[in-house]
């Protein structure tokens, strides 16, 4: 037997033994998962009675059963709210799970462990964990920050609003997630966003304007209108976008004025807002501007004319030959 044969034999033997190890491990994991399901199945009645009637679980549960019950309740917690959810929170507080998860979120070295704890606290934690979650928005690990923002949305605590705004502005958390979180908190977040409108940071002012536009209503429109006169173009553009959602007739003159802004981005946002608010008085002006040489602004003006009065958009497109008006009129017809 040559050296190559011996090497081939050794490699085959090690491959077979590796395969054996994988099979054994897979079967072990499958057995463990099956056992876990069986334990959970046996505990569902206990979990349901705890949830729906506040019945205490039996004190003699084995460690594996306690863990399975915690997993089960953690999953159920994601699906419900109200007093039934509060019973889960009480249970986890009594069991010391909340304190343990808080300690893990603060001290664990592995980012995934801190993130898991931050995620779980949103499901099983009382609102008193919100400050710790708000602090976790500054964690060095992105997953932890994301989990903390999501959990703050689950807990619906307005106290964290300014921390969330800061996290969105600094891009520590994806802005879309912050928007979702604040939508979960809803109107109670508004008073805490207002101070952002007068911040020295233009990004903070722009962020506040954007979020107020998302959460607010006509009552906030006057303060948002002030943003159209901000020294920052970013803020002025966000104010126009926000007014397209929460603005009304009172805001139309300021929006018409904003279509003359020296920055195209602001003019574009103002034109879109006038279209959204169906300002018929702007049609003639917007139609002229639709023939302008700033592509985005001209297209936004044409879009606005078509949104306000599709028939006029078609007529004016035929008369002026404006390609933007023609396109907007065609799109309006399809819609």
């Amino acid at each position, binding site marked *: 037997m040559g050296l190559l044969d011996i090497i081939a034999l050794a490699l085959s033997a090690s491959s077979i033994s590796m395969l054996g190890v994988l099979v054994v491990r897979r079967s072990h994991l499958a057995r463990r998962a099956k056992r876990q399901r069986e334990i959970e199945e046996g505990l569902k009645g206990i979990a*349901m009675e705890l949830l729906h009637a506040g019945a205490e679980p039996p004190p003699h549960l084995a460690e594996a059963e306690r863990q399975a019950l915690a997993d089960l309740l953690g999953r*159920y917690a994601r*699906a*419900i*709210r*109200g*007093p*039934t*959810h509060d019973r889960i929170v009480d249970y986890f507080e009594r069991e010391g799970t909340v304190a343990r998860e808080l300690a893990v979120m603060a001290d664990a070295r592995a980012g995934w462990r801190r993130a898991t704890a931050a995620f779980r606290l949103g499901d099983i934690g009382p609102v008193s964990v919100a400050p710790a979650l708000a602090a976790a928005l500054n964690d060095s690990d992105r997953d932890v920050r994301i989990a903390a923002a999501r959990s703050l949305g689950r807990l619906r605590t307005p106290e964290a609003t300014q921390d969330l705004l800061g996290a969105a502005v600094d891009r520590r958390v994806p802005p879309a997630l912050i928007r979702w979180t604040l939508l979960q908190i809803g109107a109670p977040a508004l008073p805490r966003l207002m101070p952002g409108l007068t911040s020295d940071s233009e990004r903070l002012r722009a962020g506040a304007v954007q979020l107020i536009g998302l959460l607010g209503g006509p009552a906030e429109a006057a303060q948002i209108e002030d943003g159209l006169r901000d020294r920052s173009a970013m803020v002025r553009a966000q104010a126009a976008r926000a007014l397209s959602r929460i603005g009304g007739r009172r805001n139309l003159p300021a929006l018409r004025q904003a279509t003359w802004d020296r920055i195209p981005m602001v003019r574009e946002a103002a034109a879109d807002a006038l279209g959204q608010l169906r300002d018929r008085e702007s049609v003639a002006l917007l139609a002229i501007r639709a023939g302008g040489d700033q592509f985005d602004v001209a297209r936004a003006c044409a879009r606005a004319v078509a949104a306000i009065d599709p028939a006029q958009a078609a007529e004016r497109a035929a008369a002026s030959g404006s390609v933007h008006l023609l396109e907007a009129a065609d799109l309006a017809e399809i819609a």
Partner: protein
Amino acid sequence: MSDGKPTILVADDEEDVRELVSYRLTRSGYEVIDAQDGEEAFRLASENVPDLMVLDVMMPRLDGYEVTRRVRAEESLRSVPVILLTARSQETDVSRGFEVGADDYLKKPFNPDELVARVRAVLGRR
């Protein structure tokens, strides 16, 4: 109605949600039939007409809107009230639910007490 108890058909592809809804309704004195998707829900409802249906909006095969639309189009099921259980809460989603014929809707995560109250209210209107 079996044993004098109103029958409620609960359809949701999430097992945990289905269990929570079913347990709470059973505990509140209703007979509950479970379905894992929209197709099964419609089939079970056609076989054994329930007194009310609680349907998740986002389900495989047939979503809650489509099941509601079919229920309203089916002579034997037309009068069965439908409550939609939805993670969506945008105004358009809610109005779409009412447009296809739903009687009420509940947002996820849901409050089980509110669910029972709404079931009672909808059944009481019949």
